[in-house]
């Protein structure tokens, strides 16, 4: 690169819509993913608000029971497969993984672009079922109902299959990138913890997603050819579907949360102005979570009729996940200790994460306990638990990471005061929405029904009001982003005083990331 002019960057070096749609630049592909994920988040979010509105009062409020089942299915499928799974790895990971390790791009740029096209193709197919025959199975597509229902299930799962391939290819790309493209001096013990998170996630994506792929293909074959594998009428076993499904979908939960933990590690150390406590422990606990996650799927099936021995073993293994997770929590807390903490919006989201994720995690241990789960299974307690992990955990980290990296991505600063307001709205709204659901679950309110007994009404109303606060919070976030892009002040190269490599280049970064190949001689967080 002869041109060292910092006014030339990846955004303005090439022009026109084609230069974006066919770009092989990981940064541009990251932005494409960002727009896609935001769009799907909007649709999934509207479905969520619809669900909560229906549950505002006893009896039919705004929709029929069938419509409710469809809303629930699309909310789940969109949020899981199109928002949270690609959210952090494909948006922030794509943009920052090469920058973090001093590489010019990911290992396979064309594959990277193909992954994005596969995501939108799969998403298009799955969402197009809305206009063919709406699916009402829930995002889990449990057999035998999914074999019998009238919805276009085969088409929906085929879309998910393609999105799964996209996720596999992203994971494969990231593994090869981390192994082969680290710059000189960037040993595995010097890569930022976000990269460790992405690396562990990628291993899960590569190892778990193919099992989902074959499961969904078999389900599609079940509907098209009636092969009988999951159909009890033909000698098949519907419970086998649950085993297969959760063999993927439980690791998938960690595909969703481990990159979030990586983001939190970056945020906490930056805004505490202090070297992260226990780098190695945090790095390897990500791998630890990934390893254990393959042996816990049976905790979704305590009441499915699996043997008691299996239940006990799965219960024990599930609790084991708490160990590496707690290692992370304690290390983050230890990093905060005597740090010079500043409460800018990314840090607020990080602290919000610590608080909400702790609740999500501890209720997870409760649900791992056999005797308690038999009572709580399929109640709102479970709904609340996984929303505390997925929204309180992953989405909080995504928002925090987003505010943290916006100055680098677009070279502009956002309105800090408004960003803090979005945090307050989302954080309070989230707790108002989901804390009552713990109580409702403990009272025995079952999940997935469009109606409930009058005794549950007041708590449901509180929950619905909370959902409006969350909605308002995210709408204002959208405004903050647009406002930042349109009117934002120019961002300095390193507004937060961070130590990782991406902050050493100009904001926004040049097309080839680095003007000179970086050479690293120390760890990523040399604060004090």
């Amino acid at each position, binding site marked *: 690169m002869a041109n060292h002019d910092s006014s030339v960057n990846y955004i303005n070096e090439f022009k026109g819509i084609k230069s974006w749609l066919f770009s092989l630049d990981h940064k541009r592909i990251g932005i494409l993913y960002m727009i896609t994920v935001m769009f799907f988040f909007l649709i999934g979010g509207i479905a969520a608000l619809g669900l909560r509105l229906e549950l505002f009062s006893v009896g039919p409020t705004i929709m029929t029971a069938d419509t409710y089942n469809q809303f629930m299915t699309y909310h789940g499928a969109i949020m899981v497969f199109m928002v949270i799974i690609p959210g952090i790895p494909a948006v922030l990971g794509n943009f920052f993984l090469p920058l973090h390790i001093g590489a010019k791009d990911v290992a396979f740029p064309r594959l990277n672009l193909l992954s994005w096209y596969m995501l939108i193709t799969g998403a298009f197919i799955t969402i197009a079922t809305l206009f063919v025959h709406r699916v009402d199975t829930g995002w889990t597509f449990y057999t035998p109902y999914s074999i019998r229902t009238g919805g276009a299930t085969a088409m929906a799962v085929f879309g998910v299959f393609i999105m799964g391939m996209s996720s596999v290819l992203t994971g494969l790309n990231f593994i090869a990138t981390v192994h082969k493209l680290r710059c000189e001096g960037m040993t595995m013990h010097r890569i930022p913890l976000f990269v460790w998170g992405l690396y562990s996630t990628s291993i899960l994506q590569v190892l778990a997603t*193919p099992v989902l792929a074959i499961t969904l293909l078999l389900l599609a074959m079940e509907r098209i*050819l*009636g092969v009988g594998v999951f159909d009890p009428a033909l*000698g098949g076993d519907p419970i086998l579907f649950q085993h*297969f499904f959760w063999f993927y979908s439980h690791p998938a939960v960690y595909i969703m949360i481990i990159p979030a933990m990586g983001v939190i590690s970056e945020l906490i150390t930056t805004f505490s102005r202090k070297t992260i406590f226990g780098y190695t422990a945090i790095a390897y606990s990500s791998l630890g979570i990934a390893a254990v996650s393959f042996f816990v799927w049976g905790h979704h099936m305590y009441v499915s009729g699996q043997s008691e021995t299996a239940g006990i073993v799965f219960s024990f293994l599930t609790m084991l996940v708490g160990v590496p997770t707690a290692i992370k929590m304690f290390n983050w807390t230890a990093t905060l200790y005597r740090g010079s903490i500043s409460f800018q919006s990314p840090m607020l989201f990080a602290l919000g994460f610590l608080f909400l994720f702790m609740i999500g995690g501890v209720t997870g241990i409760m649900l791992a306990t056999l005797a308690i789960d038999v009572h709580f299974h399929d109640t709102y307690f479970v709904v609340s638990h996984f929303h505390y992990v997925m929204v309180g955990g992953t989405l909080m980290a995504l928002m925090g990471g987003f505010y943290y990296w916006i100055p680098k991505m677009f070279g502009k600063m956002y309105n800090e005061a408004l960003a803090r307001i979005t945090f307050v709205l989302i954080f309070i709204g989230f707790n108002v929405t989901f804390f009552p659901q713990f109580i409702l679950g403990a009272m025995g309110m079952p999940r997935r029904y469009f109606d409930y007994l009058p005794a549950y009404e007041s708590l449901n109303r509180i929950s619905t009001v909370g959902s409006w606060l969350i909605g308002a919070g995210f709408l204002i976030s959208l405004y903050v982003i647009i406002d930042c892009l349109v009117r934002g002040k120019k961002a300095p190269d390193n507004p937060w005083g961070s130590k990782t490599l991406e902050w050493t280049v100009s904001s926004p970064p040049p097309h080839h990331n680095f003007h000179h190949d970086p050479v690293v001689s120390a760890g990523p967080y040399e604060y004090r």
Partner: protein
Amino acid sequence: MSTVNSHEHHYAHHFKNADHEFVTSKQGVWLFMVTEILMFGGLFVAFFIYHNMYPDMFAEGAKQLDWRMGFTNTLVLIFSSFTMALGIHFIQKGQNRKATWCLVTTLLCAAIFMVIKYFEYVHKFHLGFFPGKYLDVAHVGAEHANLGLYFGFYYCMTGMHGIHVLIGMALIVWVLIRNMRGDFHPHYYTPVEGVGIFWHIVDLIWIFLFPLLYLVG
């Protein structure tokens, strides 16, 4: 494995040299093979579970298959793996014409495999051995009421494998054309290497499918 020098081939800008590009691409292909094996792994696990549940039915189903056809196909595929490996060997030596003939032979073997598979399928359809619910137990005179499940597995597993053979054929055509255009030389043959790995895995899966479906029971 092999050392590749950087002259002649233009490697992508984010790699240090052509060798760096080669080993990275190869790692990518191997990672993809892991996903292939895991995907078929799901089918194999399901197969073993039901085989354990209904051993008689699987024995009855296996009897309906012609092991000679399966065996021929096994030989054909093993031979095609050999010619594939030989093709890569010739490209490494710079003997592209010989490599072309090896790739053509591989392609022919793959076609023979698919033709034999086609006749097997047609014969099964003719006798009424359809998958799952479409198999009429009374019509085919089956002893086991769920024989359709066996054929469900048969069609899913061999069908999945057949799709991979077709994809493999398309990939071989791609590297064949590029080889004839003279794109490859001893310092650059990454795509052939990758397609070779894929082709060996496809063969390997068949080597497991053949005894399980045709011989067990």
